[in-house]
């Protein structure tokens, strides 16, 4: 088994995925590295890739005119970065900046998107898994919005 295949196959996001789907994922994958401060994604750019973070931390930032970028959340080891490649208009809605040395596996979202259109079983598996991540992030965002530690809470 190729190391990349092992890494992807053992990742919780891909656990239980059929072997042929897994092989397809591996064929779309490549190891990448980002130095601290590097922008991995830029708001408005075409969203054609997503990342499985293996090491380091990534800050999701929102650009605000006349302000420093606002960090909305961080994404760390074992997490998936980016789902805009899956949904129209396939543009990033946030910036993603490497906080420290980041090692990741980049997956070709554009390629996978086309495969999902061709094979709806694969498409359903992918969407189901991303929906789980979206739900977790939505829950966390709602909790964050409550500003629980503010005075008077």
């Amino acid at each position, binding site marked *: 088994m190729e190391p990349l295949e092992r890494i992807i196959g053992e990742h919780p996001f891909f656990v239980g995925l059929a072997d042929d789907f897994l092989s397809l994922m591996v064929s779309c994958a490549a190891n990448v590295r980002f130095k601290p401060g590097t922008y991995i994604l830029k708001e408005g750019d075409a969203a054609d890739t997503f990342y499985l973070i293996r090491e380091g*931390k990534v*800050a999701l930032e929102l650009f605000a005119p006349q302000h*420093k*970028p606002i*960090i*909305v*959340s*961080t994404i*760390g*080891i*074992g*997490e998936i970065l980016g789902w805009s490649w899956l949904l129209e208009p396939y543009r990033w809605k946030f910036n993603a900046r490497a*906080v*420290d040395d980041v090692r990741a596996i980049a997956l070709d979202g554009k390629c996978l998107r086309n495969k999902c259109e061709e094979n709806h079983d694969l498409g359903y598996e992918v969407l189901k898994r991303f929906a789980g991540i979206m739900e977790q992030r939505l*829950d*966390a965002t709602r*909790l*964050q919005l*409550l*500003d*629980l*530690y*503010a*005075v*008077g*809470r």
Partner: protein
Amino acid sequence: MATSGTIDPMLPQPYLVREVFKETPDTFTLRLDPENAVNETVFRPGQFSMLWVFGVGEMPISISGDPALHNRLVYTVRSVGQATHSLVNQRVGNGVGVRGPFGTGWPVEAARGRDVIVVAGGIGLAPLRPVIYQVLQNRKDYGRLVILYGGRSPRDLLYRKELAKWARNSETQVLVTVDYGGQSWRGHVGVVTTLFKYSRLHPARSVAMVCGPEIMMRFVIRELEAMGLSRDDIYLSIERNMNCAVGFCGHCQYGPHFICKDGPVFRYEQVRALLEKYEL
């Protein structure tokens, strides 16, 4: 009541402010020593005292110091009202009345031999700090110690130097996150529940101790249960308006419990149904 001799629990004992340390812009840690040497105070992690600022009022404050250090009471207080504002503005040498310690404690002794998960939000780290001291002082008696701590922003984090120090201990994992991180913050940004996926836990042999806003605790419990922790191994500290601190006045009644006497630390299973009641 764990003071030496027989002392009326309604009678404040005289203590002197020995140190006031600013933790964050609105939160201070005070060290109090007994004015009379006979008032040796022993407490269990998780217990609280009633602190009386003369001429202002009395307030329940969790003990945040080291339980191994007798004759010294440490409290971390957030200045949110008249009484707490007055307390944190006490000068060294001023007198403060102390009743207690009161209430149940965290099950630190019962947790020997097991992994300990401490989950704190905001000032909720203060009542849990004695747990951390006790586990670290008896490191071989416990398995892994995992501390998950969430704050509002980097400047609102308590005990930052100690957090870094605790993380250097063997078999100890400290993960800190903030809801709002500035550009200079290099740590995690997100609520405390987002830290669970980075924690190295063995749910079957773990005991979790959780303190923070109740909404936060509800979400934390979901995470702990999803990881496989038994409800009997999850403990919470519940906060209500405590007044007499000995279960007489009823101000802190919480269903069939008086928080001052039966709590503030409860096993989750004891209060699970109450946490879901809108009226409480």
